């Protein structure tokens, strides 16, 4: 059987690829026949001329025979395809407006889909650009009492995990921030990461030049720099090897340059050995991000089980590990965790937009098909089979779809650029976002599917109308009346329902964002200049620098207040630790270890950010080393640990530093402030004075409250700092910018979902308008008759409006039902508003109803202004 197909295929292919050769063979075959016949005829006694005449006659018309044979050998569908294409393009050009409407509608849907799918594809779906990325895991403490993971781990825990597990090939930790680095004699900020030697093995990174350090060298001050940083600092990556740089006041040697493109985490400039930054050896001090590479063939569940056994053992062994288990998460999930909700939400929205676009296309195609009913009937009457007509409709729709796809891709590319410009910088892997083969394939698949489903289906329905009625009708349309109005009404219902769902979602996001923007943060962001510096040395030398600098900043004209803080609001990396209060062993009763966020501030911090002090006093210049240790707590901690009793004067202890372990007297209570995020209510928090905590107090961010635009003061602040020490790098920002950045995720999704919902609503309104216009145009003669028989124009108008609003109301009801169920999916990203918020839903329904009314008004007016004479003459 297969052999038969092969030889048949060969014969056809020969005809297709070499028509010249196959023609010649045909010639040869036939002329051989003629020659043989002549010879036979001559042998039987004919004259040569007669013999040839008879031979040719016998064969029939030579030329016609050749034509027949040739036809048999070519591939007819290819001919038909060319013909269909030519015909499709001619039809499309002939009906420019309708075709443009289809193309533009498709382009909107496809463009939106392409842009969002590019984001989803690059951020969520593509594997991480490392060696065996599926084996790379993050390992974090998991508090069994709260179910929360902790992101950062303690160094002793890490060591036990690494040494006792059976599932990881490599395990490493990293921790870092932007610090002062002196390269080529210039102090600059660089993103550094303290890493353990196996860090590079986890990611399968090799050195591009030089080498990576080994476990034995961990105690030497060594650095590996990123390819990009090496190139920008030393011109050529290779010349970085052997250079000495100054990092956090210590000298380090660059031994290697990492392979180009590797900058994990985020955009790190250099990785340092632990000799450069002392490691916190406290089991309760969580500072380090642990990453690991599973052994080949080990599953995530197996790894979890193995690690939990170790954690359970540690829990028995150390009091600090109480309730501390361990979580193992694939790194891709961890990295994209926050972006996932937003991106899937956007993806759902654009699919809604695409569906509405498709419904519109279906509508337009039905109208076109109806208008061409007569043409189809004629073609069918002169012999085009239903298959042939169907194929032509298919070709036409595919051509339209592909044109829409092309325009849509351009639109999508442009939209993607806009998205990337406004996307939150902390969406991971944004630099990897691009339109790749998978995106193109996705777009093409969507286009083809939609063209076939929503273009051919309706058009086929229209062409199936029987040809005799199509021919008999005088007007071009009319053949599809009877089926089409109901189908089209259904389409309008679908459009209204879908756009209601999208508008409800975007309305909720909008209201949620407005509430989020107005939430009482507990501190001010207005007119506060943020100055980031990095002092070359640590300890008391650094705190002295900050003390002097703050004092001098206060003398700058325009500065109202100045202070310093260790962890900026909304910084994701925040110190926390368990705490105890002397005399209240069971502050929490349930045996949970109370956890507090830890913060180091200078005197005057609360005034500078306008956080009111509820009781007691602020820190002052007397709270220095050697004096009694003091602390300020926030209202939440006061409430949770002390209830109604007075916390002032009580002693509180935390495990952050040796000083804080010895116990600190509570001297004040401040109002709660949303430190983590505007969305998250404040947690219990302990503030400590920087001069009593020289370790963590040696790296502060300075805040300056000004009476002018804070940016105007940047110059004088820089000068003041330089006068004190010319070796500190300085960078500026404002508290408003910090807040803007913190709100970038909700803003991004709100703006995008709202834009798409508005686009969807516009498409839906255009759909309602075009369906009604078409129905009115179709009924022109009927309306003419009614008017001629004495109908009142106002009745005609209200009849059209009623008809359309009936459909719209059904759509709204269906949409409402879907909204109540589907929109719950966004509950997790809503702030302070329910996904069933009646005000929002009512407002959206009202808005949609009014605009739908307006959209039906124009066709209704047109119906009411029909001239009965003209209408009847048309018929």
């Amino acid at each position, binding site marked *: 059987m297969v052999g038969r197909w092969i030889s048949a295929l060969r014969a056809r292919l020969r005809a297709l690829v070499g028509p010249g050769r196959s023609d010649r063979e045909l010639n*040869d*075959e036939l002329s051989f026949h003629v020659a*043989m016949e002549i010879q036979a005829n001559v042998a039987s006694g004919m004259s040569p001329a007669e013999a040839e005449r008879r031979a040719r006659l016998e064969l029939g018309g030579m030329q016609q*025979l050749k034509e027949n044979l040739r036809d048999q*050998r070519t591939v007819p569908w290819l001919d038909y395809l060319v013909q269909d294409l030519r015909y499709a393009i001619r039809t499309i050009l002939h009906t420019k407006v309708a075709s443009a409407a289809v193309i533009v509608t498709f382009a909107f849907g496809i463009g939106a889909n392409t842009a969002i799918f590019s984001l989803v594809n690059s951020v969520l779906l593509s594997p991480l650009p490392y060696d065996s990325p599926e084996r790379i895991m993050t390992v974090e403490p998991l508090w069994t009492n709260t179910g929360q993971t902790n992101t950062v781990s303690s160094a002793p825990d890490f060591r036990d995990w690494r040494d006792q597990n059976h599932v990881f090939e490599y395990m490493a930790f990293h921790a870092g921030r932007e610090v002062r680095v002196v390269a080529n004699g210039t102090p600059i900020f660089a993103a550094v990461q303290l890493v353990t030697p196996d860090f590079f093995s986890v990611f399968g990174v090799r050195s591009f030049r030089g080498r990576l350090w080994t476990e034995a060298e961990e105690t030497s001050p060594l650095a590996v720099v990123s390819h990009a940083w090496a190139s920008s600092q030393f011109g050529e990556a290779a010349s970085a090897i052997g250079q000495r740089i100054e990092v956090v006041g210590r000298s380090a040697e660059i031994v290697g340059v990492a392979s180009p493109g590797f900058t994990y985490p985020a955009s790190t400039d250099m990785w340092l050995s632990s000799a450069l930054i002392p490691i916190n050896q406290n089991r309760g001090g969580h500072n380090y991000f642990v990453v690991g590479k599973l052994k080949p063939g080990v599953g995530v569940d197996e790894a979890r089980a193995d690690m939990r056994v170790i954690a359970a053992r540690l829990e028995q062994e150390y009091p600090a590990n109480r309730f501390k288990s361990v979580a193992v998460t694939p790194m891709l999930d961890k990295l994209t965790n926050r972006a996932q909700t937003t991106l899937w939400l956007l993806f759902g929205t654009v699919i809604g937009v695409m569906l509405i676009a498709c419904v519109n296309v279906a509508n337009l195609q039905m109208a076109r098909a109806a208008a061409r009913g007569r043409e189809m009937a004629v073609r069918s009457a002169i012999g085009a089979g239903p298959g042939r007509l169907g194929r032509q409709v298919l070709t036409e729709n595919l051509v339209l779809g592909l044109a829409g796809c092309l325009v849509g891709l351009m639109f999508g590319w442009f939209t993607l650029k806009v998205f990337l410009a406004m996307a939150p910088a902390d969406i991971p892997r944004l630099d990897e976002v691009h339109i790749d083969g998978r995106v193109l394939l996705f777009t093409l698949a969507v286009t083809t599917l939609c063209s076939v489903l929503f273009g051919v289906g309706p058009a086929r329905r229209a062409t199936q109308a029987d040809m005799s009625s199509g021919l008999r009708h005088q007007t071009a349309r009319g053949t599809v009346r009877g089926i089409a109005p109901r189908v089209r009404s259904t389409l309008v219902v679908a459009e209204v329902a879908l756009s209601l769902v999208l508008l409800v979602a975007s309305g909720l996001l909008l209201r949620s964002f407005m509430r989020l923007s107005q939430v009482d943060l507990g501190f001010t962001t207005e007119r506060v200049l943020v100055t980031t510096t990095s002092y070359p040395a640590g300890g008391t030398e650094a705190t002295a620098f900050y003390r002097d600098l703050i004092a001098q900043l206060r003398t700058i004209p325009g500065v109202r207040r100045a202070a310093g803080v260790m962890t900026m609001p909304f910084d994701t990396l925040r110190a926390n630790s368990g705490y105890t209060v002397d005399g209240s062993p069971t502050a929490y009763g349930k045996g949970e270890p109370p956890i507090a966020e830890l913060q180091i501030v200078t005197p005057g911090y609360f005034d500078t950010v306008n956080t009111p002090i509820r009781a007691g006093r602020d820190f002052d210049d007397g709270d220095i080393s050697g004096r009694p240790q003091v602390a300020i707590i926030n209202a939440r901690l006061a409430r949770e640990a002390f209830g109604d009793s007075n916390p002032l004067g009580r002693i509180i202890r935390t495990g952050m530093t040796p000083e804080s372990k010895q116990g600190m007297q509570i001297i004040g209570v401040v109002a709660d402030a949303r430190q983590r995020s505007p969305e998250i209510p404040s947690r219990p928090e302990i503030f400590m004075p920087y001069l009593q905590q020289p370790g963590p107090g040696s790296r502060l961010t300075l805040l300056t409250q000004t009476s002018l635009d804070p940016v105007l003061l940047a110059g004088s602040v820089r000068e003041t700092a330089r006068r004190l020490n010319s070796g500190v790098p300085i960078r500026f920002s404002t508290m408003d910018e910090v807040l803007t950045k913190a709100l970038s995720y909700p803003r991004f999704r709100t703006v995008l979902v709202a834009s798409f919902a508005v686009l969807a609503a516009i498409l839906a309104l255009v759909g309602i308008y075009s369906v009604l216009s078409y129905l009115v145009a179709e009924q022109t003669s009927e309306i003419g008759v009614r008017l001629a028989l004495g109908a009142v124009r106002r009745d005609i108008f209200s009849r059209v409006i009623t008809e359309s609003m009936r459909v719209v109301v059904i759509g709204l009801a269906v949409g409402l039902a879907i909204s109540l169920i589907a929109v719950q999916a966004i509950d997790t990203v809503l702030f302070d508003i329910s996904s069933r918020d009646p005000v929002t839903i009512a407002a959206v329904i009202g808005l949609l109803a009014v605009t739908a009314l307006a959209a039906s008004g124009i066709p209704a007016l047109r119906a009411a202004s029909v001239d009965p004479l003209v209408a009847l003459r048309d018929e």
Partner: protein
Amino acid sequence: MSKPPDLMQGTLDLLLLKIIALAPRHGWAISQRLKQVSGEELQVSDGSLYPALHKLELAGWITAEWKVGELGRRAKFYTLTPAGRRRLEHETEHWQRVSSAITRVLRLKEV
């Protein structure tokens, strides 16, 4: 020259397959052999011979090969493929069933 009555649909294919099955031949030889065996009764016009041959070739029942024939000229020789052989058997059997059925009907005596 008047055309002989058209052969029954599909019968020409069967005849051609059979003749080619006997030995690979070129078109003229097939035509001659057909005339020779069946006499004038089943004369096939050369004008319908070649389309039929090409159709069989495209269907994969026979394949063609260029070889030097009589007169020292290149001629296209047709050979049966294995699939063509099965087809021939199937068609032959079919023909025999149909023709014997027809014969039985024709033998019925008029009353």
